[in-house]
């Protein structure tokens, strides 16, 4: 029986577990710029793709092996289990500047939030979604990396204040940051709401947010000089260190989990995650959990008409009008959707969660945003 709850406070029971390494990696390269080709032999940590956006982090092989297949969607690496790794880059001793940012980007760190300068740096230490305990785990067990990560972030942004937001009552801290407790209930873990709780302002200027998972990666890169090739995921109540690209099939096999036909397997969290269509899909760097929902647990989404009950509006933490946004998005009138608060939405998913008519409201909102973004790019070029 599926237990639906909003609580974000779930203390991890044990330490981070290692996952048996997979024989095959399926690294998602959709919308990335490929830097390797079929037949290439990769060492552990070799770059396979670059991110096309200015700050996006590159993508690396989590294990050594041979590239067996490439298509627009993913890159398959047959792992040989070789021990050879790439040479480490000494980012810790580099001076502040574009060279350091470039080096971090090459090592897989998304440097967009670390570029420029900021007055306030907020570290979001709340578990991102119910059922995920990665953030609490890293805050407890990843002290050294987090300290190094915060030092690096402070060096890059030179903020006058650094604030660590954690669930209320949690006794953790990172040297160099003041700790603020936040009510551990979804959606208060989302960046926009964490910043509002901490600073008292909505979408304030000169404020940057970084979550604990990214800060940990930054710290690890700083300490080791090796690229980011693994992510931490909450699976079945425990936290695992998972190489990026591990096929979901492998996770199910080694952890002895079962998925029946018709089930939904979600990478990420239950509110905002992505449901996969094939067990061969590999996990991505930003995935922080894996969930299996049986097909009969929840009434399925419907392409139904809105009946104007207003539940979405009453539940919306951004005070926007999802019922109108979704109707305009449905008929591709995106400019009108913007008039009803599309740009204030931070995609918590509570509108679709509560919709009696089971409309895919979050999907419509993301669709409208993506279409407007694509249109903007079209006119610029």
């Amino acid at each position, binding site marked *: 029986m599926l237990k639906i709850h909003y609580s974000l406070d779930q203390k991890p029971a044990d330490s981070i577990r290692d996952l048996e390494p997979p024989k095959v990696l399926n690294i998602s390269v959709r919308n990335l710029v490929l830097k390797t080709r079929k037949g290439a032999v990769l060492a552990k940590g070799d770059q396979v793709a670059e991110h096309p956006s200015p700050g996006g982090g590159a993508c690396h092989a989590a294990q050594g092996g041979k590239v067996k297949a490439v298509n627009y969607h993913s890159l398959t690496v047959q792992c040989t289990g070789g021990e050879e790794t790439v040479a480490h880059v000494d980012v810790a001793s580099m001076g502040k500047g574009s060279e350091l940012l470039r080096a971090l980007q090459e090592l897989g760190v998304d440097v967009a939030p670390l570029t420029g300068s900021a007055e306030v740096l907020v570290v979001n230490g709340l578990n991102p979604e119910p059922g995920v305990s990665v953030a609490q785990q890293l805050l407890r067990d990843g002290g050294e990396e987090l300290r190094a990560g915060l030092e690096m972030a402070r060096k890059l942004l030179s903020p006058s204040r650094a604030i660590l937001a954690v669930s209320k009552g949690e006794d953790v801290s990172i040297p160099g940051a003041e700790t603020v407790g936040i009510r551990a209930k979804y959606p208060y873990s989302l960046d926009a709401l964490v910043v509002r709780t901490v600073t008292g302002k909505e979408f304030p200027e000169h404020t940057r947010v970084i979550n604990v998972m990214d800060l940990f990666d930054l710290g690890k890169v700083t300490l080791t000089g090796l690229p980011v090739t693994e992510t931490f995921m909450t699976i079945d109540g425990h936290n695992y260190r998972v190489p990026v690209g591990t096929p979901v099939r492998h996770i199910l096999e080694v952890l002895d989990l079962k998925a029946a036909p018709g089930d939904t397997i979600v990478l990420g969290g239950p509110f905002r995650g992505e449901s996969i269509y*094939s067990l061969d899909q590999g996990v991505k760097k930003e995935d922080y959990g894996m969930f299996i929902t049986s097909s009969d647990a929840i009434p399925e989404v419907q392409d139904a008409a809105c009946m104007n009950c207003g539940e979405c509006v009453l539940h919306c933490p951004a005070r926007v009008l999802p019922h109108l946004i979704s109707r305009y998005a449905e008929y591709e009138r995106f400019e009108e959707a913007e008039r009803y608060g599309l740009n204030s939405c931070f995609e918590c998913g509570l509108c679709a969660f509560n919709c009696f008519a089971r409309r895919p409201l979050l999907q419509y909102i993301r669709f409208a945003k993506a279409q407007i973004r694509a249109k903007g790019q079209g006119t610029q070029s």
Partner: protein
Amino acid sequence: MNPPILKAMSDISLRLTVSPPPHWRSGRTIQGMMRAHLLALAPAAVMAVVMYGVRAFAVMGMAGTAAVLTEVICLLLQKRDVDIDNYSALYAGVLFAFLLPATAPWWLAVIGGALTIALGRTVFGGFGCNPVCAPLVAWAVCRFSWPGAMDIDLNLAAYMANSPVDQLMHFGVSSLGQFDYMDLFMGRGLGGLGSSQVVALAAGGLFLLAAGWIRLFIPVGFLVGVAGTAAIYWVIDPTAYADPMFHLVAGSTIFGAFFLAPDTASSPVGKIPQTMFGLIAGAMVVIIRVYGVYPDGVPFAIMVANLLSPLLERLRPKYFGVR
């Protein structure tokens, strides 16, 4: 051009369900909502049958059946999926029947049930698109077309009790001494066959509130609007105007507060608009009862407030981060 392979690693041995987030949902559906609403009407329907006999049941059955069949025809004509299994048409038809006198002829119930769907909903786009509460549209059409057949007081003249709101309109406040408010609260006053079953409707409404199917804003706003406006008149001149308690238990005030006003499509969206909507509708009830030519102000009051919904929806807070 589409990419050559749409699903790069699709796998037929284990077909997974792919759905948009969120992957957890509240589990609430329109079907569940309408089922709960029908359940909330059940006590009043039982009380109506006890009071008026089996003919009350026949009126509800005919109106409900006519509504469902009309919905089927309308959906087929529009080439849409026939989704009468969500009970929304049945619910709307029964709501209409609740406003009729128990002696209503069969043709009135059938025409009303059909109008509820055809004129109340379908012409505006179907369930969820009606700007005015659908059963009230049918009620208004029938009230103007067949005033004799719709008149509560006239049709139920054979009963010993009187209709409190008609007494107030025709004979003034001095005639209200005949009513014990406890009797009216228990449903022992004449009125629409279901809409005067005050205690049963209140129980159903509280059930809907407790189960979270309707929100507090509209019912509370409505009741406060009725009581507040009635209190103002009563303070001005207790000999000319009825007291607030009378307005709360007489006519279909409770029915309007919990069932007609919170109709999803025709009521506004958001806390402030919904509260304002309730207050305006409630105030209109008393104003129509005081000045109007119709004894029970509830249907027209709610229809007027429905028309204000788009305006009221402009009373909303600024979007997150907008200065």
